[in-house]
């Protein structure tokens, strides 16, 4: 199956106060794989993604991305902070509500990472930025501010912003949930291109089952902080093994 694990999650646990949100997650994502995570709200899907790039500190467990290995839990020492930063640089994140920088134009949003974090020259970064805007189908919106763009356009800019860091893995946290129905297609189309043309390694939390069936290489069903079903989309969607999975699929399909 996965030859070189681009992402490896071992024994990941997370509690908020006394409440256990993740109860021991093990997951490996190979290069170029698209893993679709689904499950009821509160099952821990978002927390899983947020623990992977340490937006939430895992209570226990290890995250490894592209050779950078970080232990969860404990104090964030200077050394650990730097390790987390290296891990984040290699990980693109797309949020449910976009989180574009409202004071910057679309192009400046895209090049902010390369210029500030990677120290690229502005002119070079702009050339790359325009290419990425072209890729997400918004070459004429470079000078627009986020407030002047639709939700679908903002999310595509957010994808371009994450891609500009040339990440090894892209994570999507319910990328279409905040969108009006007619805008979902344009965002999914960009994500599909990422998977099929760029062979990007992707971790996607979504309930878009059509997308999962088409480009997913693994599907992961989460229930009460655990992965209770895991397999290729065709199998999971047509023949779920667990009653919880079946009930959920009946509800969303």
């Amino acid at each position, binding site marked *: 199956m996965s030859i070189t694990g681009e992402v490896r999650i071992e024994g990941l646990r997370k509690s908020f106060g006394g409440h256990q949100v993740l109860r021991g997650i093990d997951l490996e994502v190979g290069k170029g794989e698209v893993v679709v995570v689904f499950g009821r709200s509160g099952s821990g899907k978002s927390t899983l993604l947020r623990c992977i790039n340490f937006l939430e500190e895992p209570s226990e467990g290890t995250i490894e991305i592209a050779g950078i290995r970080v232990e969860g839990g404990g104090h964030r020492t200077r050394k650990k902070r730097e390790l987390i930063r290296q891990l984040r640089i290699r990980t*693109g994140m797309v949020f449910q509500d976009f989180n574009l920088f409202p004071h910057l134009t679309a192009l400046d949003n895209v090049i902010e990472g390369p210029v500030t*974090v990677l120290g690229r020259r502005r002119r070079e970064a702009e050339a790359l930025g325009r290419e990425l805007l072209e890729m997400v189908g918004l070459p004429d919106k470079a000078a627009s501010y986020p407030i002047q763009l639709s939700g679908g356009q903002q999310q595509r800019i957010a994808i371009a912003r994450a891609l500009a860091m040339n990440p090894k893995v892209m994570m999507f946290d319910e990328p279409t949930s905040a969108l009006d129905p007619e805008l979902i297609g344009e965002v999914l189309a960009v994500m599909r291109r990422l998977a099929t043309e760029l062979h990007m390694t992707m971790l996607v939390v979504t309930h878009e089952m059509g997308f999962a069936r088409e480009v997913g290489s693994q599907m992961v069903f989460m229930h009460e902080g655990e992965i209770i079903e895991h397999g290729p989309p065709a199998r999971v969607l047509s023949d779920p093994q667990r009653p919880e999975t079946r009930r959920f699929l009946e509800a969303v399909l």
Partner: protein
Amino acid sequence: MTPDGDGGARAAPPPAPPAPARGRRERLELFSSRVPFTLKLAAVWATILGVLALLFAGADFDTDWMREHAGFIARGLTWTIVIAVASIVLACVLALLGALGRLSRNAIAVGVTSFYTSFFRGTPLIVQLFLIYLGLPQIGINLGDPWADWLTLDVFTAGIIALGLNYGAYMTEIFRAGIQSVGHGQSEAAEALGMTYRQKMRRVVLPQAVRVIIPPTGNEFIAMLKDTALVSFLGASLDQMEIFRRAQLLGRADFRNLEALIVAALMYWGLTTVFQYFQLRLERRLSKAYVRGTAGVAVAGERARPGT
């Protein structure tokens, strides 16, 4: 009948109600509603100024004296402005550090900044002025040689430090609120890109916080422009006197107190008005990215017209 079948709406006009007799008051209200608001506003201002002018005329002011000596008082403008600008710069630096300290998880930073804001908001500005001007040299003398020199400040420096420290303490809260007004998602987006704390603050959080910080900071600056008058209580040589001190001195010498003070008041007022104008322009510029519509700049320009 109209050809396009909207006759339904027009058919059978309701019988006109008998025109009620309009009272004097109602006619006045109706007339008033037709006069543009700005015109009414101008009329009110003109009336206020007219009444004041009458009072002035009645008070038998020595306007010749005012004209003659306005120049002397105006020479204090430079000092007033220099003190205010230097103090606000110091205050902004302290407020930024204070806000970042208050929001940090470092015990030293939180401790130092909470002590700072507590003390300087909890004691009167005039006391702080004298503490720095008269109190510090005393400490310096007790400490011995190099300190005595360093801690003995001239009026001007003591005034700037006291005003800066005092206003910085108040503005810490303004800056803190501004920083907190930037959504948590912005921080996460910056962190997800791999930004350090510094980069996140400089590139993402502070540029957005500035929009929230500017209006109340302008307010503080206006208050400070006027509080520079307190510096004169420390006493100053003639070439370092600001507006109020000059007005006081001159008014007493010639027994034209009211005239001198009115000249000073008008100068403060003029100064704050000019400053408010620039603040408004700055705020418009900063809101450029937050205006919907394809040409944000043009829309902002449109709005600028009635105000100016």
